[in-house]
């Protein structure tokens, strides 16, 4: 099972390749992805699809909220907890 750091690294890498298109753009782990325009409402769905495929997860509709996906930190915390529940 991937740990929080690995989840964060994979998420950062995906965001760089698919939304920032650059290695030099700043991307802080606590940066609001929607608030700073890194992703928009369709982009967040792309990101969620990536997370579901990459970590073999299914998110419930009620989990699809900004609290869970609006930053690299929030994503890695949420995905890690999902993976832990899944493994039980």
């Amino acid at each position, binding site marked *: 099972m991937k740990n929080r750091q690995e989840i964060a690294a994979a998420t950062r890498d995906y965001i760089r*390749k*698919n939304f920032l*298109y650059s290695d030099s753009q700043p991307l802080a782990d606590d940066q609001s992805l929607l608030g700073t*325009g890194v*992703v*928009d*409402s*369709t982009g967040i769905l792309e990101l969620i699809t990536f997370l579901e495929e990459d970590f073999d997860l299914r998110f419930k509709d009620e989990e699809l909220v900004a609290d869970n996906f609006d930053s690299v930190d929030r994503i890695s915390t949420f995905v890690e907890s999902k993976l832990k529940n899944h493994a039980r």
Partner: protein
Amino acid sequence: MAGLNEKHILKRIARGLVPEAVLSRKKQPYRSPDAVCFLDPDAPGYVQDLFSDAAINRAGIFDSAAVGALTTKCRAVVQMHGGDRSLSNTDNMAIVGLLSAQLVHEHFISNRPQSSEVDITFTTVIDRLTGRTDSGQEAMNT
């Protein structure tokens, strides 16, 4: 104008001629053209040319690696899902913005019309340091 009710007078004039549903309809957002038509395999050749590394570097406005990553991703998304709902708004606007800037550069900077045939002579010279103004006898009425 009546507050934010657009075309207020036109709507009053049209009352009785146009259905009420149309007159009272709210303003709807509309954006055109969409990026999808430029990412289709049938898109005009100039689009591919203007997005090429060579053209991006020639214009020197955008980073060609980033443009390459954006166009590759967007083409793949359009090919996989089709339709204009598949691209995010941000990517959609980025593609249209890039293409517009590249077109402006191509037409008005790279290939700007040669002005050598038009002979311009300045007949009024204003020296901003001394404030002296010389007007030639053939000065235009400006």
